[in-house]
């Protein structure tokens, strides 16, 4: 029966669908009445009485976090390209860009959305802090170095995943960003190094210049996430909590008044 209701236009359904479904559930329509519903849907499309409420304009400040993420990604990409293709070994300018990226990334993340992500934040923060604390206790031996690396990895992945979360990217997309932007390049570097160490075969000459290139996907991931965040908008922590309009709260479209 709900298939018939789907014939109605979206704004009409937003306003009337729930009660209409209840009505035809309580008073099951006869075949003639089903035809009447189809005629009603046709009428609603030809002579719409309900229109969608115009979206409220987004404050410009909601684009700031996205622009910061975008800038972070850009700075990281420039740093990577500078290190990889710059004159070297003096990478002063490239290092500056790297510093800017490292600063901008966490700055772009605080927002009111984090309130609903307490559990994840505690998990990521706990893994990061726990790894660092354990590494410190172990005196930075081999095991401690592994833990330190793990903490860095958690921080790198966590920052990107949080940015992707803020950009409204679905869990699958967040995983793709983390795997494609961090884990895959890391596995590649580790694999190349392992092959060289165990067999002596050099697939790629792993120097600082070439290694830096493996950070490029991470920078690109931040660029994409930042772009999406800027387009979509996200309240900053200094913005007052957004109060949806009455129509948005009720999930209803507005009936236009003459």
């Amino acid at each position, binding site marked *: 029966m709900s298939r018939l209701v789907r014939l109605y236009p979206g704004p009409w359904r937003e306003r009337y669908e729930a009660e209409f479904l209840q*009505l035809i559930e309580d*008073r099951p329509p006869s075949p*003639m009445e089903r035809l009447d519903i189809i005629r*009603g*849907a046709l009428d609603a499309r030809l002579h719409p*009485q309900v*229109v969608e409420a115009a979206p409220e304009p987004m404050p410009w400040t909601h684009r700031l976090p996205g622009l910061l993420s975008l800038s972070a990604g850009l700075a990281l990409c420039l740093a990577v390209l500078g290190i990889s293709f710059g004159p070297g070994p003096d990478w002063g300018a490239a290092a500056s860009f790297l510093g800017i990226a490292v600063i901008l990334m966490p700055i772009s993340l605080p927002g009111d959305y984090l309130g609903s992500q307490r559990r994840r934040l505690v998990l990521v923060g706990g893994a990061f802090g726990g790894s660092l604390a354990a590494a410190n206790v172990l005196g930075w031996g081999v095991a401690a170095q592994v833990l330190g690396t793990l903490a860095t990895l958690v921080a790198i992945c966590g920052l990107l995943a949080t940015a992707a979360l803020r950009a409204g990217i679905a869990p699958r997309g967040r995983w793709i960003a983390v795997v494609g932007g961090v884990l895959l390049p890391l596995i590649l570097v580790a694999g190349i190094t392992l092959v060289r160490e165990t067999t002596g075969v050099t697939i790629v000459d792993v120097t600082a210049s070439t290694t830096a290139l493996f950070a490029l996907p991470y920078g690109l991931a931040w660029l994409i996430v930042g772009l999406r965040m800027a387009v979509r908008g996200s309240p900053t922590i200094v913005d007052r909590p957004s109060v949806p309009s009455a129509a948005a709260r009720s999930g209803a479209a507005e009936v236009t008044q*003459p």
Partner: protein
Amino acid sequence: MVDGRGFGRFAEPARLVLVALRDGPRQHVRLFDEVRALDGPIGPGTLYAAVARLERLGLIERATNGNDGMRAYRLTGSVAGGGLASAIEGLYR
């Protein structure tokens, strides 16, 4: 674009809705029953085409039905306050 034309074939169902709401707010299923009781078999599609037009013109409005939270419809102030006859007349213009 919102259609600015009149009620057309929905004028009579709209009149019945207004008459059914004359004595106070009605939850939508009850409104449907009362409209049908007034004039035989009117389908849900026709009823809601009339309801949407009446709402658009500001002749009826939604009201939350206290206890069960279900939505009900009622005449707007101007119609309930003695303007029913002229509102009905306006449907057929």
